[in-house]
């Protein structure tokens, strides 16, 4: 899905979130039924075409994947990661989507910062949802402030018109390469693997399912492949730090955890996070198996990590969560409460375990 940024006026600020990893194949789960639907605050009266204001800018949202289930609300204490970011002057911000994962955390931070936040969605999924453990008052305060702009992002003219009419200062969305060529003032954020509560990619969830079921963890090849996870809250905070920051103009930043981790290490870290005993890890040669269309492991079978030193040095962005700490946060607020996006599917595991030929 291509979203073409506007070429006309000079845009003040564009924040891009591009996925540096080819995401796991689209989820095949059916959405969990969502009995609760918050009132939708709609914006009407979109006027006809007008020229874009000069301070229009584009920000980016996580790449769209198939709509996923929304966990039912729970009551618990405020999740960790309350913000210490110094507030910049209040802005009118449009988030394309913003109803899932990164957008959920990001929009809260923006509202807490005092910005006026509008979420642009088709209205098919709930516009807002409480975070696991979020007290009612906090959620209602957020809900009452955030605005909704209903529309289809593929309707180019509609998007353009609405943006013009509203005079947004900042927009969060995708599409890096085009922005460079259009001369738009942008900042590009590159996460590696994102994790945290409400993750719609089965990253930590994949391990948790197996740990909970007491199953061995099948890991391809040596298990010493090095990867890197970044907590969603740290990512959301990074977006905030970049907002309105001159230094970040036309720059690209890797945003992820401060340390990397081996596949084997990640399995053990997930076990620690969920209070499980140390798992049995089985290494196998993926070439010896035919898994059909199924993915036997949620990560690319290679080293994949990036230094976050530039964001640290130039913007003072320092990830807050260590790996076990962050996985514990994810477990406590999500999987540990019985919520997850994808049902456990051990088909490929059983294929691997069924064969006697496995790498030790």
């Amino acid at each position, binding site marked *: 899905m291509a979203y073409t940024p506007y070429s006309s006026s000079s845009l003040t600020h564009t924040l891009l979130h591009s996925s*540096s990893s080819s995401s796991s194949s689209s989820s095949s789960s059916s959405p969990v039924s969502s009995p609760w639907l918050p009132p939708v605050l709609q914006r009407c009266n979109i006027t006809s075409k007008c020229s874009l204001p000069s301070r229009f800018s584009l920000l980016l949202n996580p790449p769209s994947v198939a709509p996923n289930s929304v966990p039912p609300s729970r009551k618990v204490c405020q999740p960790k990661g309350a913000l210490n970011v110094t507030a910049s002057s209040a802005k009118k911000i449009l988030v394309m989507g913003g109803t899932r994962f990164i957008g959920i955390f990001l929009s809260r931070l923006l509202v807490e910062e005092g910005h006026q936040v509008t979420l642009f969605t088709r209205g098919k999924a709930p516009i807002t949802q409480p975070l696991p453990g979020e007290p009612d008052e906090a959620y209602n305060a957020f809900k009452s402030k955030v605005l909704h702009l209903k529309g289809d992002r593929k309707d180019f003219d509609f998007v353009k018109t609405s943006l013009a009419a509203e005079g947004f200062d900042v927009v969060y969305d995708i599409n890096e390469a085009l922005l460079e060529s259009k001369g738009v003032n942008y900042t590009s954020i*590159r996460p590696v693997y994102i994790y945290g509560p409400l993750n719609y990619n089965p990253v930590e969830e994949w391990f948790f399912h197996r740990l909970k079921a007491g199953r061995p963890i099948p890991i391809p*090849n*040596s298990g*010493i*492949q*090095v990867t890197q996870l970044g907590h969603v809250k740290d990512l959301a905070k990074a977006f905030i730090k970049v907002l309105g920051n001159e230094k970040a103009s036309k*720059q*690209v930043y*890797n945003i992820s955890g401060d*340390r*990397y*981790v*081996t596949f*084997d*290490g990640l399995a*053990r*870290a997930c076990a620690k996070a969920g209070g499980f005993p140390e798992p049995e890890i089985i290494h196998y040669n993926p070439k010896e198996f035919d898994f059909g269309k199924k993915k036997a492991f949620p990560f690319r079978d*290679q*080293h*994949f*990590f*990036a*230094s976050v*030193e*530039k964001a640290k*040095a*130039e913007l003072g962005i320092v990830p807050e969560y260590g*790996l076990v700490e962050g996985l514990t946060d994810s477990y406590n607020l999500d999987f540990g409460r019985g919520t997850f996006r994808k049902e456990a599917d051990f088909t490929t595991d059983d294929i691997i375990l069924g064969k006697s030929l496995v790498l030790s």
Partner: protein
Amino acid sequence: MATLLSSSTSSLLFSNLSPPSLSPISLSLSLSFSSSASLSSSISLSSLSKRLSLSSKRLSLSSFTVNAAAAASEKKKVLIVNTNSGGHAVIGFYFAKQLLGCGHDVTILTVGDESSDKMKKPPFSRFSHKKAQTDAGRKKPGPGIMLQEIVDGGGKTVWGDVGAIGTVLEGLTFDVVLDNNGKDLDAVRPVADWAKSSGVGQFLFISSAGIYKQTEEPPHVEGDAVKADAGHVAVEKYLSEVFDNWASFRPQYMIGSGNNKDCEEWFFDRKPVPIPGSGMQLTNISHVKDLSSMLTKAVENPTAASGNIFNCVSDRAVTLDGMAKLCAKAAGLPVEIVHYDPKTIGSDAKKAFPFRNMHFYAEPRAAKDILGWQSATNLPEDLKERFEEYVKIGRDKKAMTFDIDDKIIESLKVPVSV
């Protein structure tokens, strides 16, 4: 591209001694700034990421200014206590040359006896009383040639045992001492005690990144847990107690002319290259000039450096397979790697392979944050130079036997191209 930056610096450093008033580091920085508005930064460490080289504005202007000011203002008297063997002697030589290039006063104390058996053997035997060797081209440049270059550059060289260091250096005073000699207190304490008593202002120590405890969450970062019983750890602790201004530098593997210990040569020698395990193990192989530039930064920014540990390495990881491939590429040859389980060759495993069979990867975060240091290692380019020297000294034609390699290949029964 990171490539551009480092290749411009590699031609600057050590091709000849830079004019005394300019630090090679300052020189390289100013060139980079003037050449283009944007400098690349090494951000992505994944060799498989497609977005490797990015343009960014460095914020190192201020560190550059500080560095230039420091270089211009204070001439230091530096003593390098250097090992007479071992792979890290080369650090002392490069450091000496760089300091001389910056206009500092340098003395190298090589531990041992100039007339000892060690000194009689090449490469030491080619030093001091001989003029430029006619056979230099046929031997791997070693400490002998390096020490000669230092003398040519205005440095002083002495020999002696650290136990008698007070006598050996009688009457001499220094602002800075680098101990690149010992890996435990027995070896370093005499140097440290003498330095303290003679009023040395800054004490620097070459430690080792090998003291980090193994982790499943690389990289090794300064401040991470170290093996409590390691000799270097005891030295670092002692130095922190004795000196107001001290710093420790933890290197890994290095390449560079004058290195006594084989690194890249091991790969150049071989086809196929037997690598234990998966070959995915990450390590850090730096050009020794990265180490000397970091040390020089510490000398010229003593307040900033004080009390700190620095991982003395380049800022990129390389896998073991990757190193084999890069060496082959530098040699213009196809690469052939065979993997084996080291358990199958028993006690030969240690001798079979010159690198640790595990992730052994540290990042130079403290040097970048605290000293404003930048890496100039560029393995693809650096290895080309190393291969050129390898050929120049005729090592590619040298007859060699590979008993352990043969055992490994035999055990794998892998057909090998002749």
